[in-house]
């Protein structure tokens, strides 16, 4: 309990300013919506109830990076790992303190919004309030869980942040590519019909991002099944993070990737993620578009290796591993092209091909 309170106090540096920003933004934006011309939008869905929270959930990364910041310096690691605290307790304390800060912020902004509704007389659906609170809380914890797992794998902030991005987004991006790649030319099957695992809106954290770029999801994003669905990867990642944190040698502190091969793997996976869109269209792989994506991936790879190692020569020595990312993309294409061809065969034939 004492350690939890101590962590709560430590994370106040992140939690308090963010809470203030969320509450002020909710007051201004929510007030403007309820008292102004977007009056009708407020009652239409839970999504637009708390505008700030869709951004706030991604601060789970900041909480994890700051909560586990002692892992990123040798001196910090010496202090924390020498304290009479079991690693499980330490991990749990950071998690509970983060959950408290993020939960409190979400709850307070929901209450604030409720007050705005009541004062303005804006119509609202009462059940949306607890539902969106639950949804945003699960989304926050999902981001935090990915970041905690990233921190357990890493010894520096840069690798931890990059790892978090990979853990959170790469599997979803691959699912998206898989669904999109196979069915994009099949008009009768939308990729939203492929079930929850391939539906981009089911995962709370990535679903929010999808919602930001495609308003069509607004109405279907915040649901109880989606929140419960997202709890599964959250719990899995929290468990994996704890397992790794308990086994993580403290000598990883201030080393690029905690596990020696992880720095290389992180760079390769980042490059792979950047190049992945070329699988959307086979012809693009050998086009200017493909060349641009490969160049961008190479840039990201080199930049990451430079930031991680701080030495040009060391970063350049890792260049051959970039080919692994290229090979992975080609491999992904090798799977995607036959799958898409199979789907394309099912399309209605062109009139001129009929005799």
């Amino acid at each position, binding site marked *: 309990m*004492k350690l939890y*309170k101590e962590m709560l106090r430590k994370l106040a*540096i992140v939690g308090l300013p963010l809470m203030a920003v969320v509450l002020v933004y909710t007051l201004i934006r929510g007030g403007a919506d309820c008292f102004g011309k977007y009056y009708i939008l407020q009652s239409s869905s839970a999504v637009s109830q708390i505008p700030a929270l869709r951004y706030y959930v991604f601060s789970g990364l900041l909480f994890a990076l700051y909560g586990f910041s002692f892992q990123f310096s040798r*001196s910090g690691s010496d202090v924390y*790992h*020498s*304290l*009479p605290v079991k690693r499980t307790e330490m991990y749990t304390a950071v998690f509970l303190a983060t959950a408290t800060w993020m939960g409190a912020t979400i709850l307070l902004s929901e209450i604030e919004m409720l007050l705005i509704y009541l004062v303005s007389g804006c119509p609202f659906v009462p059940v949306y309030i607890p539902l969106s609170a639950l949804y945003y809380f699960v989304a926050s914890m999902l981001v935090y869980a990915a970041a905690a797992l990233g921190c357990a794998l890493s010894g520096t902030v840069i690798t931890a942040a990059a790892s978090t991005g990979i853990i959170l987004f790469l599997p979803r991006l691959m699912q998206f590519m898989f669904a999109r790649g196979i069915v994009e030319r099949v008009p009768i099957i939308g990729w939203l019909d492929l079930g929850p695992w391939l539906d981009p809106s089911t995962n709370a954290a990535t679903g929010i991002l999808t919602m930001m770029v495609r308003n069509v999801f607004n109405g279907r994003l915040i649901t109880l099944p989606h929140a419960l669905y997202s709890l599964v990867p959250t719990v899995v990642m929290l468990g994996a993070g704890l397992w790794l944190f308990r086994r993580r*040698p403290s000598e990883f502190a201030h080393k690029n990737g905690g596990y020696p091969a992880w720095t290389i793997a992180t760079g390769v996976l980042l490059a792979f993620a950047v190049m992945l869109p070329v699988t959307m269209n086979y012809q693009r792989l050998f086009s200017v578009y493909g060349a641009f994506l490969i160049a961008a991936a190479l840039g990201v790879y080199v930049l990451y290796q430079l930031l991680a190692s701080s030495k040009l020569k060391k970063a350049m020595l890792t260049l051959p591993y970039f080919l692994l990312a290229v090979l992975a993309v080609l491999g992904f294409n090798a799977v995607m092209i036959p799958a898409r061809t199979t789907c394309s065969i099912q399309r209605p034939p062109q009139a001129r091909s009929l005799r």
Partner: protein
Amino acid sequence: MITANNVTKRFQDIVALDHLSCHIPDSCVYGLVGANGAGKSTFLRLLSGVYKPDEGSVLMNQQHVFENKEAKKRSVFIADEFWALPRADMKRMSALYASVYEAYDPKKFLALADEFGLPVDRPLNTFSKGMRRQAAIIQALSTGADVYLFDETFDGLDPVMRSLVKKKLYDEVFDRGATVIVTSHSLRELEDTCDQLALLYKGGIVLESDVNELKTSIIKMQIAFAEQYDKDKFEGLDIVSFAKLGSVSTLIVRGEKMECQKKLEAMDPLLLEMVPITLEEIFVYEMEALGYVFDKGDSEQ
């Protein structure tokens, strides 16, 4: 009692500690001396449970230290590099230690801060290097731990503060039976502080001894005779080192001072003079006697 049994710690290809074994008794000030890279910090990190040994075991009162909350409650580690929470003052760091050490004494913390003349509510990042070290020592002394692990903590303290820190540590040892383990790359820093000294060399302890025993077991003297002579003249003595310049020789002899002096006086020398010997010299001579050959860099440490 702290025991290290055949402890090995590797960092990829580098063997930092190589089958190191030692027994550190309770209620003493134990000094670990060694050149940079000898493995002092690694050993302290193993003792404090920061690192897990690759081979062997580190026991504190018969309990493994790594991931053992009960064993770690008994010790506190102050690393060579100071660390504090961002924008923290001494009060904030006190709260951190108080949250994990059940025996933490806030009154003692305030009293020590007052005695050292350190402001408890001033941000630690405005402290000088020496003040930060003092702040770290104060935190450690307030935890109520039985074992204090200090990694080069005294290096760089001014003489007045060194004296005050030493006094506080002796108080802990005499009043509470605490054990203090302190490392330094300089023997001079520890010479007047420790009861026991150990020399770490290339990942192993090559010499471990009681300081008083060391100081009284070896004597240095200058001697001259009217006639020609060489080392063989001193056959009955345990000569550690013999160096002759003209007719005057400098002898390092292992043995009881009065007994050696009597034997030499019996040889009717023209000159016989006891010369003060530093602990550093004793270590070098003992190491040479053990067959260790130092390069210049090592011997300078």
